[in-house]
């Protein structure tokens, strides 16, 4: 099963109206080539699940500027003023989620869990419309799973089977998103042979990865 495809083949899979998860934290660890190609393609009405909306000139940030998202589920938009503008003017919906809660919701989506109870957000407007559950006298919010049609992630070394090694702090949301989408496309800094990554050092198993793009290095 050959998982290697071109950038073009990869973005052909992304259609108007889909929900996409994108790895990266303020752009670090984000699949920039795929995102640039999505800007080029101009696909619209997407729902984004990502840590943040990056910077106006970078990755998902460019897609925001290009008005490709109808909804963004993120923890932070402060580095991209265009997101705030679209939100305030009602052009796009922004669902702000505490970062740890966002991570758990994505993890639930990938791990077959129906939700988690977190103390984060209790007593704030984050609790609006959510079920509160008391355990051992302490209040928690029930936070629900997130899944996507497609996850776009970035790996440092990816073997031809799809096993991924993430370098340093580029890991962030990538490993949990790799489990939480119907189709997972990894942009590789480097594509290596099967066996080149020690099984102890594989950070996302090949079974999660449907397609591999890249390997210019």
């Amino acid at each position: 099963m050959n998982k290697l495809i071109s950038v073009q083949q990869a973005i052909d899979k992304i259609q108007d109206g889909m929900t996409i998860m994108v790895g990266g934290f303020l752009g670090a660890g984000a699949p920039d080539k795929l995102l640039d190609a999505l800007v080029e393609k101009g696909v619209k009405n997407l729902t984004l699940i990502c840590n943040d909306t990056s910077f106006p000139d970078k990755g998902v940030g460019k897609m925001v500027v290009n008005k490709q998202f109808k909804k963004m589920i993120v923890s932070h938009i402060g580095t991209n003023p265009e997101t705030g503008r679209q939100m305030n003017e009602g052009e796009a919906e922004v669902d702000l989620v505490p970062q740890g809660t966002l991570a758990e919701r994505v993890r639930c989506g990938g791990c077959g869990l129906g939700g988690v109870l977190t103390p984060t957000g209790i007593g704030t407007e984050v609790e609006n419309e959510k079920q509160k559950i008391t355990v051992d006298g302490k209040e928690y919010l029930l936070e629900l799973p997130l899944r996507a049609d497609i996850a776009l992630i970035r790996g440092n070394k990816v073997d031809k089977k799809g096993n991924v090694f993430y370098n340093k702090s580029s890991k962030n949301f990538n490993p949990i998103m790799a489990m939480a989408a119907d189709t997972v496309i990894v942009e590789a800094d480097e594509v290596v042979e099967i066996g080149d990554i020690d099984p102890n050092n594989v950070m996302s198993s090949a079974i999660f990865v449907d397609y591999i793009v890249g390997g210019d290095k």
Partner: protein
Amino acid sequence: MAMDKKQIKAVIAKRVAQELNDGDVVNLGIGLPTLVANYIPNDIDVTFQSENGFLGLGPAPEAGKEDPDLVNAGGMPVTILEGGSFFDSAVSFGIIRGGHVDATVLGALQVDEKGNLANWKIPGKMVPGMGGAMDLVVGANRVIIAMQHTQKGNHKILKECTLPLTAKSQVNLIITEMAVMEVTDKGLVLKELGPEASIEDVKAATGAELIIPENVGKFGL
């Protein structure tokens, strides 16, 4: 002789650093709190967590040695110290929520005498989002607010926050250029005065009742 902005930040960061203990795991927020790292005494070992996914946050790299895969939670190039480790966002917030972080130092738009904190949203005006702040404030064993005492002359320390909360009753200590204040069941206790502040100054600059013990210490520049 009033302190300039740089001195104010330094005096706050320096005083916050004194709150940290040997062996502590600490998460510093973006902005002023970041400066705290510069004032850790040499004889104590403090491990800094970066919520984007590592422990052992070190200083910025030399020019030209930046690694795009190694940034802090503000997206800026940093280094990792020997003995550090990387992990994903789920583990990172497991660390934060799970009580493995001894202290977090954050800025505030408003903080009140009940320990409520508001630092993520000014409705209709500025909504950066909470990022990791809500988890940090709920999860860290000790929450220290480090900020200028007032904002353009307006009170930031209040009887009750008016902006949307980041968390309820989680703040333990407030450190400004004018004072160190502890949040207690009875209210805000003035513990120390800043280098240029009197009790009257602090009272005037604070929108909440202050409990003033007989002996109030002093901290320096």
